[in-house]
């Protein structure tokens, strides 16, 4: 293949654009394998055609194109990046402004209101906290009565000396070893009016039951006390006691 033929028939451009017949293509390839000049022209034409087609695809060769459109080269990556960053900055500024101007004052107001309510509640609670709670206070000289089993109506009741300022009376009941794990104690007046019921009592290491009873319900007089086996079922009456409350 001669250079004149290549020139006249535009072989290089047609080769690049895949417009040669197979035989022409084969002949031209054999030629440029031994012709540096034609191979160089092929390389340049490849880039030229690729560039022109790319430019046309991007509208740079349009009829109304006034100038080149910015290239999508590696140097223009910052354009979209800058746009995204700018949008993000505007959104962030809007959110910050909204928080600072709207949300923060609202939260501050709520906080102030809560603090005022808390102070008010503390002021109301202060006098109550200063009053000692009866049930929570330690008590000394607690009266205690050790109950004895009743052996007949004529037997005298067990006396319990209950000072006026005593809050509790401790009952101490010796219990024989039996098969019950828990016990129940019912206290009633001599007339049979229930005063207190103590449940789920267990024997202590002295094989006795110990329980405190509020002194409010124990007015001077006689009381009947019944001891029941509670568990395991069935429960049953184990003993009866008589107790007399007296004031010192």
């Amino acid at each position, binding site marked *: 293949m001669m250079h004149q033929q290549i020139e006249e028939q*535009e072989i290089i*451009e047609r080769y690049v*654009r895949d417009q040669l017949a197979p035989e022409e293509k084969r002949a031209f*390839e*054999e030629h*440029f*394998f*031994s*012709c*540096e*000049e034609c*191979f160089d022209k*092929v*390389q*340049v*034409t*490849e*880039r*030229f*055609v*690729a*560039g*022109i*087609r*790319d*430019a*046309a*695809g991007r509208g*740079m*060769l*349009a*009829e109304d*194109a006034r*100038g*080149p459109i910015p*290239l*999508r*080269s*590696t*140097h223009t990556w910052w354009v979209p990046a800058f746009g995204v960053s700018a949008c993000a900055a505007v959104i962030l500024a809007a959110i910050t402004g909204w928080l600072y101007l709207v949300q923060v004052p609202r939260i501050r107001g709520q906080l102030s209101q809560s603090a005022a309510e808390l102070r008010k509640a503390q002021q109301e609670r202060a006098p109550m906290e200063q009053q000692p709670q009866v049930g929570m206070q330690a008590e000394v000289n607690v009266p205690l009565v050790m109950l004895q089993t009743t052996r007949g109506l004529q037997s005298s009741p067990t006396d319990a000396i209950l000072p006026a300022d005593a809050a509790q009376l401790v009952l101490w009941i010796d219990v024989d070893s039996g098969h019950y794990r828990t016990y129940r104690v019912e206290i009633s007046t001599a007339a049979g009016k229930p005063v207190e019921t103590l449940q789920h009592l267990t024997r202590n290491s002295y094989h006795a039951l110990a329980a405190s009873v509020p002194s409010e319900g124990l007015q001077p007089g006689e009381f009947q006390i019944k001891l029941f086996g509670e568990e395991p079922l069935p429960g049953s009456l184990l003993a009866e006691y008589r107790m007399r409350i007296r004031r010192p």
Partner: protein
Amino acid sequence: MREDQALGSVDVQFVADIQNGNAAAETALYERYCAKVYYVALRESRSPQDAEDVRAETFLRVLQAIRGNQVRSAAALPAFILGTTRNVLHELFSRRRQTGKTTEPETAGLAIPSHEKLFLDSEVQQTIAQIIVRLKPRERDLLRMHFYEELPAEEIARRSGIARERVRLVKSRALRHFRELYNRHRATQNNRTDTKQG
């Protein structure tokens, strides 16, 4: 002596040196033809990876043939290298067809990107942009219709009102400008690279 005759004598010398065990001649042969083998392989396979593989396999076979004295005519070495390249490509496509992995680019349609994308980089785009600025609107239309819309020359002449001969002139002038500017870009780029490395 014509240029191709001079090149032919160089090839004859290469073949003789390689057959005498001269490793430097093998390197020189590779440097002389590697770009061409790679280009043909890239055009056909449209894959840089495949083109690399084809180039390596081609030179392996070519050097084995030269060492084994299997090249019929040392003066026809370029045609032998090109033929070997085509054989390697053909075998590659045959293997792919058998394994069902792919088809030849010509029959693959749009599934395989055009090889021209492989020649497009930012330097080419910048050079083209500089050329377009210099063109008259009618010349831009002409290049678009020819290279992008791929209209026949008669249609382009009719639409643009430019004679067919003039169409060819506009194309060759734009190509010449491109070559000058592109080579200038490359030279500047190479100088920068050399300066950095120095």
